């Protein structure tokens, strides 16, 4: 409960988490503090639909976004895993890059040149000290690249891209972005856009439909099979209504989007990763393909990142399962034992996992404490509670590879 919701039971005391994100970030982990007038906020092409469906709208990364619908966070989460959930992610930044794929490699430690046409890959912008400037999706669409970046970082990312790539950078400002996630996503979208069933995880395609050309990727951020669909803004509302006409589909807000991504072990930029964390510390080394480690090693922060890849990083992002039912939320300080005065790490994301039916957290621990099975202690309201280091994801992904 936060003041943002217009009601306080004695004052919310969640460590860090409920007072709004420490930094701008791109998901609904927190219910952001209503710190500016709604009138300053941007609205997506689905705003009217959200309101019509009874969404609770909150400010998020400069946008007025649905945090939940009448179904509620828990049921929205479970529905996505059981059937299909429709998410408005239009606040995220869409960018076209008309440059040779290698040119982007100057900014990301990712193999872009080797990305086949019609394929997408997770990527990271890094800085000179090896920190993460943002995470993003990079798709090869033949004569250009298509990027999707975090809402709160979009402006900075575009400036960063322009500084290095100049006129090649074309922000896409007239398209909405929807995500349809869950085991029924395929059969639902296939009725509107035949062809999506043949796609496999991380494929991208342009698919004609009654709603204009859809830029579809078979991906998402929930750990479920599903799609992200870029659609002309004027067609976004009718497309969303057509998808929602199928019984399997419910609209899902930022609240459930956050618990879904956390169960899937996925990072939230500004919360789990930022410029103070390297890809290796964040356990995202898999996003740095071999060719970028051995041959094309000219990316920002390469000296730090390559050294950590070879010799290990001092700390590591881990999954943690708290004992009992009390969530250990973002900001919870971690200790090696029940009495030691010196903290060893911090929780960066923590919530109740509706599908795993228990609390779950992610955080950073020293490398020698990061082995699965290790017990650490989190300070929850002045009491040290045990939590066990656990492999991520908390719930296995169901991608269609």
């Amino acid at each position, binding site marked *: *409960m936060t003041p943002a919701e217009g009601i*306080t*039971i004695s*004052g919310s005391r969640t460590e860090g988490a409920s007072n709004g994100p420490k930094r701008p970030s791109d998901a609904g982990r927190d219910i952001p503090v209503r710190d500016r007038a709604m009138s300053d906020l941007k609205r997506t092409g689905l705003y009217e639909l959200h309101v019509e469906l009874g969404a609770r709208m909150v400010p998020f990364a400069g946008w007025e976004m649905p945090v939940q619908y009448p179904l509620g*966070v828990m049921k929205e989460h479970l529905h996505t895993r059981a059937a299909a959930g429709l998410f408005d992610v239009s606040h995220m930044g869409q960018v076209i890059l008309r440059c040779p794929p290698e040119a982007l490699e100057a900014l990301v430690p990712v193999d872009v040149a080797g990305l086949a046409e019609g394929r997408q890959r997770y990527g990271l912008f890094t800085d000179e000290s090896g920190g993460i400037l943002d995470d993003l999706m990079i798709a090869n669409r033949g004569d250009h690249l298509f990027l999707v970046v975090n809402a709160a970082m979009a402006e900075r990312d575009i400036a960063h891209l322009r500084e290095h790539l100049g006129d090649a950078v074309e922000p896409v400002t007239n398209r909405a972005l929807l995500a349809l996630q869950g085991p029924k996503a395929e059969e639902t979208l296939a009725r509107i856009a035949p062809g999506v069933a043949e796609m496999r995880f991380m494929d991208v395609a342009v698919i004609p439909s009654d709603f204009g050309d859809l830029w579809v990727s078979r991906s998402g951020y929930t750990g479920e099979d599903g799609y992200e669909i870029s659609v002309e803004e004027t067609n976004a509302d009718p497309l969303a209504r057509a998808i929602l006409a199928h019984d399997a589909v419910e609209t899902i807000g930022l609240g459930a989007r956050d618990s879904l991504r956390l169960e899937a072990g996925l990072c939230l930029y500004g919360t789990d990763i930022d410029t103070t964390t390297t890809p290796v510390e964040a356990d995202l080394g898999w996003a740095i393909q071999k060719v970028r480690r051995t041959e094309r090693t000219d990316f920002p922060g390469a000296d730090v990142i390559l050294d950590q890849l070879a010799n290990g990083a001092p700390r590591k992002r881990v999954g943690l399962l708290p004992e009992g*039912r*009390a*969530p250990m939320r973002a900001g919870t300080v971690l200790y090696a034992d029940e009495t030691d005065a010196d903290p060893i790490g911090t929780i960066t994301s923590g919530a109740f996992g509706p599908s795993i039916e228990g609390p779950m957290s992610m955080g950073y621990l020293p490398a020698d404490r990061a082995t699965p099975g290790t017990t650490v202690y989190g300070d929850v309201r002045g009491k040290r509670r045990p939590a066990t280091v656990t492999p991520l994801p908390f719930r296995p992904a169901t991608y269609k590879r």
Partner: protein
Amino acid sequence: MKFTEEHEWLDDVDGIVTVGITAHAAEQLGDIVFVELPDPGASVSKDDEIVVIESVKAASDILAPIDGEIVEVNEAIVEDPAKVNEDPEGEAWFFKIRPEDVSQMDDLMDEKEYKEFIG
């Protein structure tokens, strides 16, 4: 039934006051996933933080609405916190308290005043 500005309800039956949170509060909190209750027998003072509720969104405290002794707590909501969303003003009460000074309840709102308060 009396109500606090902290969205608690108090039901005085023969000198023992049952306390829970209002339906409005439960709805605003969202799905409740964790409840921590005081120990039976504990002496509490008004405004002590004696209950912790965690919803899918955040943690909140519930304050003791009056001075008194906790005589019973509802373990059923610790076992199944979702009950608080299902029946907050009935089965999902939080604790029963023996008031030290019943007159402390005089300042609380009645149902009509509470409805106006939440507007």
